């Protein structure tokens, strides 16, 4: 698997604390933030291959992070996660350009698979994972 740079955005600390070591074990470089505001600040400074964002957050929510990424870094894949999954919400995020949508609780493998597909798309689009 390619080594990717990944940003995790979730206001529940357990998410980042689970995702960071697991994705690091797979060889990726992972940054974790707990608000949409911090995420946008980081995204303005550097490029990520994948952003994993919770939808419901105080301040700028996951959908706003998604819009920011689609406008400013179109090659970045955004995977949305939520504990309040509905079909409408899934449809909305995908319409806005999310790469995938995963409901909590989820297996890390579900996320790993989504990241793998994102890698394949990156390579298929002629891009290479961003090096840091």
């Amino acid at each position: 698997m390619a080594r990717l740079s990944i940003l995790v955005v979730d206001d529940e600390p357990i998410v980042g604390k689970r995702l960071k070591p697991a994705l690091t074990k797979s060889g990726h470089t992972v940054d974790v933030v707990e608000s949409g505001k911090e995420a946008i600040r980081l995204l303005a400074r550097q490029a990520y291959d994948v952003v994993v964002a919770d939808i419901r957050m105080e301040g700028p929510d996951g959908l706003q992070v998604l819009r920011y990424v689609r406008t400013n870094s179109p090659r970045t894949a955004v995977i949305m996660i939520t504990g309040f999954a509905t079909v409408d919400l899934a449809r909305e995020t995908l319409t806005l350009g999310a790469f995938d949508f995963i409901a909590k609780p989820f297996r890390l493998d579900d996320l790993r698979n989504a990241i793998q597909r994102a890698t394949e798309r990156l390579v298929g689009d002629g891009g290479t994972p961003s090096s840091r």
Partner: protein
Amino acid sequence: MSRLKKWLGFEERSGVPFRFLFAHFRQLVDNNTRVLQLFTDAAEKQSCEYVFDRTYVGSVADQLFDLANRIVYDLNSIADQKYATLYPLVDRLRAEVQGDLAGRPVVPRTDLCVPFGQIDESQVNLVGGKSAHLGEVATRLHIPIPGGFTISTYAYLRVVEENGLGPLIETALNQLASGDCQPCQAICERLKRAKIPRDVRRAITAAVASMKVSGEPLFLAVRSSALGEDDELSFAGQFRSVLQVLPDAVFDAYREVLASLYCKEAIAYRQARKLPTFGLMAVACMRMVQASVAGTLHTADPNHPESQRMHLGVTPGLANRAASGDSRLSTYELSRDPPHNVLDYRAAENPDIVVGRSQGGLTAVPLGPEPHGRPELTPSEARALAQIGLRIERYFKHAQELEWARDTDGTLYVLQTRRLQVVGTPSPRTSLPEILERHRTLMHGQGHVACRGVSHGRVHHLTDPSDLAAVSNGVVLVARRASPRLVSVMTRVAAILTDIGAPTGHMAALAREFRIPTIVDCGNATSRLEEGQEVTVDADDNIVYEGRVEALLQQQLVEETDFEDTTEYRLLRRLLRRVTPLQLVDPHSEDFRADRCRTVHDVIRFAHEKAVQEVIDLHMTGGVSGAESARRLDGELPLNLQVIDIGQGLDVSVASLPTGAAIKPEALRSAPMLALWSGLCTPGVWNTQPVGVNWRTFMASATSVTVNRSTGRNLAVVSDSYVNLSLNLGYHYNMVDAFLCDDRDANHVYFRFVGGASDSKHRTRRAMVIREILEQLDFSARQSADLVVARLRKRPRAETESRLEAIGRLIGFTRQLDALMHSELAALRFVDAFLRGDYTLDQ
């Protein structure tokens, strides 16, 4: 009809047809499986493989208790309300869990004082965090702690009630939210002067009296054990401890410790950690260790856990200075690896030491010049402390911070143990995937992960499941089959691998409770891994590596440390701690009773075992109704077998047959019955040639065999997926109770064999043959004289089917075998013959 009933010897139980009882049984089995599945799911979420939230934890709790209630209802429906006491028990457990989840711990209004010998972690709401941990150290790990008891949180509530402090506490909580600490200070003062209720006073007096040894002065260490203390939060040094307390002064010391719940420091700590309530205070009263040396132990370097070093802080005299930091400590650096050599020693000089006064209280006395510079502990004592620390660390699955003391007779006591906050470690320069590629993989993806985690040790093969005493500390235990009996070694092993077993089984649940990385159903772990081989078990990714994979172990330590600190994780862990521990592991034990159930797991285990027993007993005692549907099975075997269909066990065409008409084997639709029948009908198995019987032994047995000797009462109760077969074959009795479907967790085979026509020696040898064969077929079997009881549970459909077929052959093959059991050797020959498919009786 009444003649038929009489002939079958059946009496209806309160007019309830068996098919209704059986429907309850099936429901119970299904729900039992679902509870175990929920345990597995929730424990899996606890591992680092899942991401979950608070909503999830609440929904798991609701589902668990709904299912537990239904199980209790089904059991009581089968057993005629014999186990109705389980209803209030489940309600109580539910209230406790809901209180926990809402941040309002429910205190059982049971004991005012609890001796340490009876304390374990499940009583944490009653005895507080510190005592619960120490209780586990003493009762589970058998590491010395000073004796004594804990005055419970219930006693604290009694003090609050008696002194009318409830409304004050309520007000203080509200005012604290706006930053006003004054009311807390007032409560603190009130508690220092509080009246201790008579019942609490009496309980404490009796508990102290029980600690007295005639001729020896008794001094107590009276220590805080608040709810939550030394648990997820350390509260280190926030509450009071009073040392060298004379028995007469115990009430003053008790008040002082209670009052510290509202002291400034503790309130500030609560505010900083955003704790919603004041908590509850239990108080540990322990025998005072008159320490010659005492200190602290960190089982890892909190800033550099990768350094593989442990830190010992040592001071002459009592331990209070070691923890409070008001004296200098000599320090030992020890290797975490056996034999835990001393890597560094730095002596500290203190002008005085603290000792206990004979009239109570402490005093500092000047130290003479002699001890300066000389190590306070011998290397072997330092090593012993390291071993104690690592055993506790392995048990609690986290680096620990201990307080300890060495008594004047040299005994090392653990005074306190809590989780060490490890701040982390820099990432390795080489990425983990690259490191892992360098290690040889011994097993990958075999079996099912029962409990995730990473661990390391040397392989120990459990060849004799009863020889658990030989299992040493820190080994990777490799066993043929998963068994809840392994619970007795779960505090010492590093990991468990089994050839056979289900991730939803009882042992798997226990492994999760003890957080032992465990992979079950590996198929051939016993042959793939060598005794003594050093391995690292990565039960996160289901891989066994050769040797020690340091980077993986390191990553595990840091990872665990980080996410275990989150609120969601703590909630889920607390829930699992309350519902999953299994105390009732042995159905043959005297303690296997409804009133001994303490968790949901106990309840469902008890209910399942009793339900199976009830169904069997209904057949054994003839307490079954529904005989109007009995049909004689007209087959080639002389069994005179009556079949009762309780749901799609026979072909639909049977319904149109006249009452009393026989059926052919072709009409059987019951999957487990068909498997048994196929075994019974295997060519050569049902041997009809006469066997020479020694008439002397026959006559001897004829007066002593207790089984029902009348023939013609053989019975099979069948449904599409169930059979309960009772075969009375002259002088011996076979009983099979089996469930066979596509859901492996619901599958079970229970087989019982008893009796025979020859003398007891011959009958016992035949029972031995049966047991041997059943064990070879992976059954868990017990034998007592001529009785054999065997079980097989949670195996996949094909395997369960083939074992039922084998039971069918075994029933036929062993029918006349007792007369041929001339010696043990002869008996063993029959075992071999059966296993190679030779059913002739002239071995």
